[in-house]
């Protein structure tokens, strides 16, 4: 593992150079919010002082709206054309938090399972992930409770903010190659110690908010329990939690009319919507609001672990932080877990 440091003011220069070979996505300020945006044709400054981006960078590989093909009326019928997808430079995500990296591992499994999703895989191919350690996790963070860590990630490079200097560890071949750039200097003992200190401080600030032991089994037994209606009562069934979730990956395919023809599009979908399961007959197996909340929990903590061996939650806390009615997945899981204990 190569260990280097780069001074804070050299980051812009580094990103500019990386921009020659990659389409770089990095956290930028947008009217007080931090969002990941492409630096291509953008003059925005990258921010490193952020807790986490409001929206996970999942859309780099899985955009909210993706055009599959277009169709148009011609004199001799209908002609369809694959959407123009010019394979430009590979994608690079800079300063993505470890929880969001963990979510990408789930995406990789989902989109390259029985069906190889070429749209996802093309964008993911040769992509570079540069992660940034969470020196100061938020009150809403709970990555360590779902098997994650604020300081490690399956990335190409992992950065640690040490103030004037940023510590960089190369974890893969492509990561190490990037560290050959002359903006990086060899890390001295002093910086290594500082990094270690920062890591243990970050890890020490995390609390276990629930016990994941046998969670899939516990959740599985709760399907018919009477509490679902009560605990999801205040939920208004908007899609905020699902759309801002780094692991939520459900989508819908619809046609949209455009001038002279139309497009077949793939768009994010949400299990919070009654439309998600509405049958053509008019019947809806998940017509009740509580059943949709239950589904969200089951998918994340039972179906995904059972089917793919990975939890559908990485503990980023976005859902509870942005919920307009204060639904808190930690609270709900704890109710399910404690109800399981009391009933036996």
């Amino acid at each position, binding site marked *: 593992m190569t260990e280097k440091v780069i001074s804070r003011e050299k980051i812009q220069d580094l990103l500019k150079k990386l921009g020659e070979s990659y389409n770089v996505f990095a956290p930028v300020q947008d009217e007080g919010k931090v969002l990941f945006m492409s630096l291509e044709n953008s003059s925005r400054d990258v921010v490193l002082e952020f807790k986490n981006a409001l929206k996970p960078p999942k859309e780099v590989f899985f955009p909210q709206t993706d055009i599959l093909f277009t169709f148009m009326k011609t004199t001799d019928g209908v002609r369809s054309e694959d959407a123009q997808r010019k394979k430009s430079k590979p994608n690079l995500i800079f300063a993505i938090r470890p929880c969001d990296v963990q979510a990408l591992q789930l995406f990789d499994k989902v989109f390259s399972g029985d069906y190889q999703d070429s749209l996802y895989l093309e964008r993911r191919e040769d992509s570079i992930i540069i992660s940034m350690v969470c020196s100061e996790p938020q009150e809403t963070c709970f990555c360590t409770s779902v098997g994650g860590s604020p300081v490690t990630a399956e990335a190409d490079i992992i950065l640690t903010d040490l103030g004037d200097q940023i510590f960089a560890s190369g974890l893969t071949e492509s990561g190490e190659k990037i560290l050959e750039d002359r903006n990086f200097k060899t890390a001295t003992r002093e910086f290594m110690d500082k990094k270690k200190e920062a890591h243990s401080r970050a890890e020490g600030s995390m609390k276990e908010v629930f016990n994941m032991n046998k969670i899939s089994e516990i959740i599985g037994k709760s399907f018919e329990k009477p509490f679902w209606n009560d605990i999801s009562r205040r939920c208004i069934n*908007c899609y905020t939690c699902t759309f801002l979730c780094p692991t939520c990956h459900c989508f819908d395919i619809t046609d949209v009319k455009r001038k002279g023809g139309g497009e077949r599009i793939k768009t994010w979908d949400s299990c919070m919507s009654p439309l998600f399961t509405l049958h053509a007959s008019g019947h809806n197996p998940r017509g009740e609001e509580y059943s949709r909340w239950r589904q969200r929990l089951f998918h994340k903590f039972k179906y995904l672990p059972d089917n793919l061996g990975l939890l559908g939650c990485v503990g980023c806390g976005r859902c509870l932080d942005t919920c307009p009615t204060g639904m808190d997945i930690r609270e709900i899981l704890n109710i399910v877990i404690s109800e399981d204990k009391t009933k036996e």
Partner: protein
Amino acid sequence: MINIQDELRAKAKELLKKKKVNVLIGYGSLNENDLPKPIFIREEKDVDMLVWNPFCINNLGKYLLKERGKIGIVAKGCDVRSIIGLIQEHKIKRENIVILGIRCPGIIDIRKLPDKGNATRLHMERKNNVVMVGGKKMQFEEVCYDKCLTCKYPSPIEADFRFGEEVKARKENEGDSVSKLESMNIEERLKYWDARFEKCIRCTACREICPFCYCERCILDETIPAWVSRSTDLSDTRLFHMIRFLHVAGRCVDCGECERACPMELPLRKIVKMIEKDIKEMFDFEPGTSLEDIPVLAQYNIEDREDFIR
């Protein structure tokens, strides 16, 4: 502040005990670290979860449509206006609800606190117009919701019980945000909104949180045909918001919930204010201010302006 909370709990206990209500919708916290959330109290023993503090922002009126029977509800001045609106529209009956109205001096916007107030919230004190945030003195005006700055009805217009001291109405002076937009030409305005709508993720939080978005079938959800596509193409997102706002015109009471619920922090109240102004100028009507009113777009007056019909 503590007084209001105690009084609320006592009243809630009484109402549930005497079976005057079968559910009480209020604000609650499981522990004191939590921000208050909407809660539904059905039994006397749970009344102690009920809280009142300067973070009780949700407009609980939305939940009146979810409950059955006799419903008790905690409502601030602004929220009461939407409840009046729902009664006018025959969605609920006045005699079926018991309003625990709060004279509200304003609510703190956690987005305006450093780190969303996560670290400092618990040590916050408020004395008149000064708020102590983590040892730092701040003017209440710096940290409260924008809507509270110009609140015309801090004291509930309609209520069965009232709590808290009389609060003076603030001066209506939202002119700034509206006049700035009005002074723009169409191209500039489009540019302004497109730059914001581009961020919209179409999560529908603005619709779901709105007390007046109660339609069982919504045109924005129709699939055969899909009048508004799920695509986040600007043309679809513009349409999404235009349709929603036109449907609440003349009914919207500026409770501000759409803007608060929006995870992408779109300035939706700017549209609310423009609509409010139009309704006032065209029909001299202010929604949700009197139980006797007929909703403005449900009545016809021979003097109504018609010059916009062409």
